[in-house]
């Protein structure tokens, strides 16, 4: 078993320094080893449970929250918006 730690870290937006790689991989592999002992099961967990249907919400407007409260925890705001480093796309 080999994990492409760099790729997984990129997907998870985590930064792992080169000198940490080995340790991170070792610990992850030890967890994966534990996890590997699953029995062979066939079939597809469709994720559908007809017996337990979801109750849907009525399309009725509720008051929104004041913008100050929505933004109160933001590290950086400007002109009533969240401010982030420039996006490219």
């Amino acid at each position, binding site marked *: 078993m080999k994990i492409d730690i760099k790729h997984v*870290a990129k997907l*998870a937006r*985590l930064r792992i320094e080169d000198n940490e790689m080995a340790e991170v991989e070792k*610990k992850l592999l030890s*967890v994966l080893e534990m*996890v590997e*002992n699953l029995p062979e099961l066939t079939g597809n*967990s469709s994720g559908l449970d007809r017996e337990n249907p979801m109750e849907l919400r009525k399309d009725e407007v509720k008051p929104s929250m004041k913008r100050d409260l929505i933004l109160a925890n933001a*590290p950086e705001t400007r002109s009533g918006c969240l401010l982030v480093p420039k996006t490219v796309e």
Partner: protein
Amino acid sequence: MELYTLSAAELAKLLREGKCTATDILDSVFARIDAVENKVEAFVTITREEAYAKAKEIDEKFARGEKLHPLAGIPIAIKDNICTNGVLTTCSSKMLYNFVPPYDATVMQKLNDCGAILIGKANMDEFAMGSSTETSYFKKTKNPRGLDRVPGGSSGGSAAAVAAGMAPISLGSDTGGSIRQPASFCGVVGLKPTYGAVSRFGLIAFASSLDQIGPFGRTVGDVAMLFSAICGRDPMDATSSKHEHADVLAAIQGDVKGLRIGIPAEYYGDGIDAEVREKVMAAVKQLEEAGAIVKEISLPSTKYALSAYYILASAEASSNLARFDGVKYGYRAKEYSDLTDMYERTRSEGFGEEVKRRIMLGTFVLSSGYYDAYYNRAKLLQRQIADEFARGFEECDVMITPTSPSTAFQFGANTSDPVKMYAADVCTINVNIAGLPGISIPCGNGADGLPIGLQIIGPKFSEDVLLRTAANYERICGGFNTVADLA
């Protein structure tokens, strides 16, 4: 008699008899906090001012002769992953070191409506990932029954606060044992309700399909009272159930005559300390003497639960914790070159090692090419485990197992080896996997003088039966309500 040593039910009685006020109770509880919190460190935040303001309101209502909920004027500690409007909610993480929610979790709203008084936010393992509360970014909570021991986790602060007499009751959350295991370690009662029994709205998610909020107390009655106050369908949580819950306070008065107790052999194997097995079986024997019928049963898939759990919980966590990216709330790295760099530095600096490990694992098992081997297989196994429990409950009404393989361990004992730490949850994890209710109650002490807990598991929505069984044992052994001596 110091008020802080009394149960919530006893305090409610005194309040109604006019023998004390909510303010008196707070005086006693905060005096206790002032005396022992520096040793126990159960709280991330203490809300003294707000609590006194609320107590004043409640006292005025009592003075006017208003009929109030039994929880009115009762102090309560809330785990720091449950959102409290205007009160810091950190998940014990650097990532949320400054997060003040602008809204209340549904449970908090219900407790406010009852008149319960929030006294503080309880320490926990970071984002509820851990079994010792050692992964908290802020502090290490000590076990009030032995200060060199961990309180268990992840709801270590909630359990310790109750055991130390700093709160008569508290709320925790349980994803793989996070209420029951610390209850066991700290010698208190802790209930993990059926999945869907209590609204998760406002509970900062770790693993959404497994998380459930539940109560701690020093008596079964208090736990029953708190559960009945917070359970029920919430339209804000699609996974909350419409089930009509039985009157648990009435249920606990019943006896155990004819109650069929199943003993699943797989929970009494080699990994479990001998003294834990003995104490649990001794308690079972006492229930049998009180009229219960004991039978051996088998749950062969138990051995796979830990694997299924770490796949499912980590997968969900990797997605649930993706929102912590330095944009909307919480920590943002001080220096970065661009957007991606900001994301990566923020998340790497803001999360602790255990959280990052699980995010990595969860990201990996969901990534392209691995989904079927891991996530899909774990889901199939989850169904197999649930089916096995369902068959088991055709033969018995409840199952009794140890809550944890051992008494509370020492700080640092398992921190270097994640797999060993995960094994501490081996008795409790299945219950979350199957979505069942489970309760941990004290059943004596080990040779080290530390509490041992037993776990009662029932079918979905059998909280009344679990609490009744627990209350019978409580009566048999003359009551659990002891506050740790921290002199």
